[in-house]
């Protein structure tokens, strides 16, 4: 199972964290610190796995961002490596060639897209099309509520004129 997901920029800034195993706030910061130190310093031609505290961290760099997932020793590393890529492709499709800034300003979207890909540290959906459909449905629900709110305030505004 995936214990946590981290997105860290080359400068060590955290762009997203998602914890599927219970870590206290203190442990979370410690984990991030340790792993950024280990992973950001690795050269480009090395393998995508690092061994850490009896776990394995599978990571991949996309432009300025490192996507990291921590798994058990006996888990299938390549499978997880491609979960990372799967998530990135979905983000890419959603934002239209995604960049770090998209994820900074829409960090909340990155979260709910991730929730459509992983639950309980396991892959939930391997069809990009299905994920895209579900995310779009959520967006439209939010938009609809917004429009409704706007129309209600219009009505109120008009009524009180």
């Amino acid at each position: 199972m995936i214990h946590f997901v981290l997105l860290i920029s080359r400068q060590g800034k955290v762009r997203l964290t998602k914890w599927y195993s219970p870590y206290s706030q203190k442990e979370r910061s410690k984990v991030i610190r340790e792993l950024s130190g280990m992973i950001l310093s690795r050269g480009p031609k090395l393998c995508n796995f690092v061994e850490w505290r009896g776990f394995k961290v599978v990571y991949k760099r996309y432009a300025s961002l490192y996507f990291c997932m921590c798994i058990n020793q006996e888990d299938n590393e390549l499978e997880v490596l491609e979960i990372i890529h799967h998530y990135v492709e979905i983000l890419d499709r959603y934002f239209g060639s995604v960049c770090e800034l998209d994820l900074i300003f829409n960090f909340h979207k990155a979260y709910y897209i991730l929730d459509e890909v992983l639950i309980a540290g396991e892959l939930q959906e391997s069809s990009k099309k299905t994920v895209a459909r579900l995310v779009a449905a959520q967006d439209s629900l939010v938009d609809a509520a917004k429009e409704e709110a706007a129309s209600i305030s219009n009505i109120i505004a008009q009524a009180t004129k």
Partner: protein
Amino acid sequence: MALSGMRGLSVFISEVRNCRNKEQERLRVDKELGNIRTRFKNEKGLTPYEKKKYVWKMLYIYMLGYDVDFGHMEAVSLISAPKYPEKQVGYIVTSCLLNENHDFLRLAINAVRNDIIGRNETFQCLALTLVGNIGGREFAESLAPDVQKLLISSSCRPLVRKKAALCLLRLFRKNSDILNVDGWSDRMAQLLDERDLGVLTSSMSLFVALVSNNHEAYWSCLPKCVKVMERLARNQDIPQEYTYYGIPSPWLQVKTMRALQYFPTVEDPSIRRALFEVLQRILMGTDVVKNVNKNNASHAVLFEALALVMHLDSEKEMMSQCVALLGKFIAVREPNIRYLGLENMTRMLMVTDVHEIIKRHQAQIITSLKDPDISIRRRSLDLLYGMCDVSNAKDIVEELLQYLGTADFAMREELALKAAILAEKFAPDLSWYVDVILQLIDKAGDFVSDDIWFRVVQFVTNNEDLQPYAALKAREYLDKPAIHETMVKVSAYLLGEYSHLLARRPGCSPKEIFSIIHEKLPTVSTPTISILLTTYAKILMHSQPPDPELQNQVWAVYSKYESCIDAEIQQRAVEYFALSRKGEALMDILAEMPKFPERQSSLIKKAEDTEADTAEQSAIKLRTQQQASNALVLTDHRPANGAPQVSQLGMIMVPSTSNVDQNVVDQPLTHSNGTLSVVDPQPPAQDHAPAGDILGDLLGPLAIEGPPGVSPQSELNNVPSHEGTLGANDALALAPVGDQESTVKPIGDIAERFHALCLKDSGVLYEDPYIQIGIKAEWRGHQGRMVLFLGNKNTASLDSVQAKILPPSHLKLDLSLVPKIIPPRAQVQCPLEVVNLRPSRDVAVLDFSYKFGTYLVNNRLRLPAVLNKFFQPIQVSAEEFFPQWRSLPGPPLKLQEVVRGVRPMSLGEMANLFNSLKLMVCPGLDPNACNLVASTTFYSENTRAMLCLIRIETDPADRTQLRMTVASGDPTLTFELKEFIKEHLVSIPTAGKPPAPVAQQPQPNIPPIASSDPGALLAGLL
């Protein structure tokens, strides 16, 4: 660039991004937090939109790494909002900010359940996602049936069911009983017939967890898994969207094959044939292609297939193919594949006898040991370790030794340990083993733990043939210009014992041996000096007839160290000096060490321990079980009388190389040299310092620094003999004054020392390069007397010494005058009277400062005058307990609380912890074996003596929670005691766990000291 759709949020994010430095960022964030806090306070004025916006901001701030310790309530409350946008925010932010141990989460259970059983599909999804991501035990108990219903419901759409499957998986991990219901395995089998691949993928994850727990119930699912594999492998009925780079859902393939690995065999021949056909297709049909992702995905499937073949192929139909593939993989350039090739080859060693085939790849594997990637080097090291046997041990160990010189620091210790173990296990002859270990020490002395050289000493002691050879080798290393201190230790030890066997060789006369060893003395640390002193005594003893010149030289050394500040050295110097004047008596006392009894190598145990940090733990365990150390077999095991040393040696498994550990480790050796007056054969009593904790012993050396006129004999009597005084050696090492650091750093962890002192009454409170503050305390009822020992470690005096006590209101503290100046190397004692007025957990603080040269050092140190010091453990019987318990009916005299997040420990460990807090565990009072009852008497001026009763009810299924009931005749006391215990249960300070290791360590039966034991003899003499 897309914006968040919320202007306020986007503006805030931009502003944070525009901050030029960390300081500005913090200011901006603090401002925002303040703003959010005030907005949340008058919640009525918040529109749903604003609330949503602030909660998102909180998440963003939290993600940046700032503590967000408020607003959890607001996030949780959004979960019950009626509209989707707010609800969504509530769910997402709650599941990011909180974890399963958070109390707030329980408030949400009802709202979450309403969403799960409600009709709104999108709400169901949100709720299932939250529970799947952070649901804990309580969720498992209250929600599992509802989630199950959704998973098997025919009216639910796939988007809900796949979430329900993973949600159920999480709940199952939290409590495996929720799916131990009749008929569930049939349901599971039906789920595996699912056509929707999203639901099937999630269900397969759930299934993997179920079979890993208990495969017996799920035999009926096995054929279904094979069907799934066939469907995927033939690409039948797989929608385009579920193929990934042309591969039918690689994830589902991997999961299905993983599930199959939990069944011991596949009995049915036709199913087996079908499965092997699929596996064959995967093994043969996977090619290396250009596209990275396709390659990764197909190899993910391939490696899983390899694992499944290794598991199932008892007939070895396909094993050779697997080995060939792995051989290919470990030679490719692509680092991921090479890494996995090495990893899987190591796994393969476990399951089948492929040693000979794998050995053909030895050269290739050694190349990977020099790879630039540490992950690959680690795998390579593990594989070499696993494949080593008598035939290739020499080659492999030599490679490891060669690599040791250039290896990175992160790996050296592991490397040294592995080389030492292999040398020990597969030594073709023992002299080679001695060569290897001495080379190890020579090349990487800093990384050779004491266990390693202890072990070589054991071998040499037990093998008479080896002794002259080892002594000669040791003598040769001493000729080298600069040798590592460990080499000095081992050489000195070996030459002390066996140099007389070399007597006729050139350069090996007692006098020459003495002078070459003595040359090293000025450069070594205190523990080594102790060893050298023993060596001199042994050399002296072996030089018969006595050589007056040598005698005078050695005596001069002894008389020099007679006034050494280090108690151990001083004791040795004084004793050896006295002994060496006894002539014949010396022969008995310093006779050669007896043989060590046979025992498992502490190195191998240590390796098992450290393996927890690296991969392939099970492989190594398996190998160590299979191959008993065959080097040991060569030795002659006569039951010997050195039991105490040996048992202690066995306990040393600490991989760290810190000073403190070296001290502890050194202890047995000093025993074995026969100097220690009394060996304590018992595991340390609970309220004493544990064996591994030497801090308490530091008072020994400190106390000795008395007036110089005192005779050595009476000084020796000052040493508390029942505690391992020897451990203290270099904690008081002469700190190099010349070390010019910009600030004065404390030695050791102050908090740890404080916590250790909370559990015992003497030890070091604080230490830095210039001063050491020790404490010794006595407690009687509500009063206590502490003595602070301020020891100046330098050759210059400490000025402007000031000590003030900042007392909490419940303690009356009276510190005697502290002198302004502490002379060089002197120690002053400052008594401190303590009176406890009433129960409280507050802590007294010592504000301490001094000047050394240009440094002004100021420290505030907590004093260990804590609640439990005013306890007196008391054993109560059932007749006394129950009337008392009943007479205290409820709050505020009797308080009960469910404590969560407890550090998991066994009941025995918990009992030890309680006893060490002076809360006496009364076994047998509670009929339930999972519970624990303890009692103590508390003393303070207000309460007088007050009986306190404690009952802990643990949950064997979940060690992280328990229910605690505390009762006493005083409401404040009850409350304080309850909180006090809670603090110790929830986060055990690192140094505060001494009882636990004692309980875990296998404590071999240590016989009472035999009369032939040199240590015992010596004790008799003194």
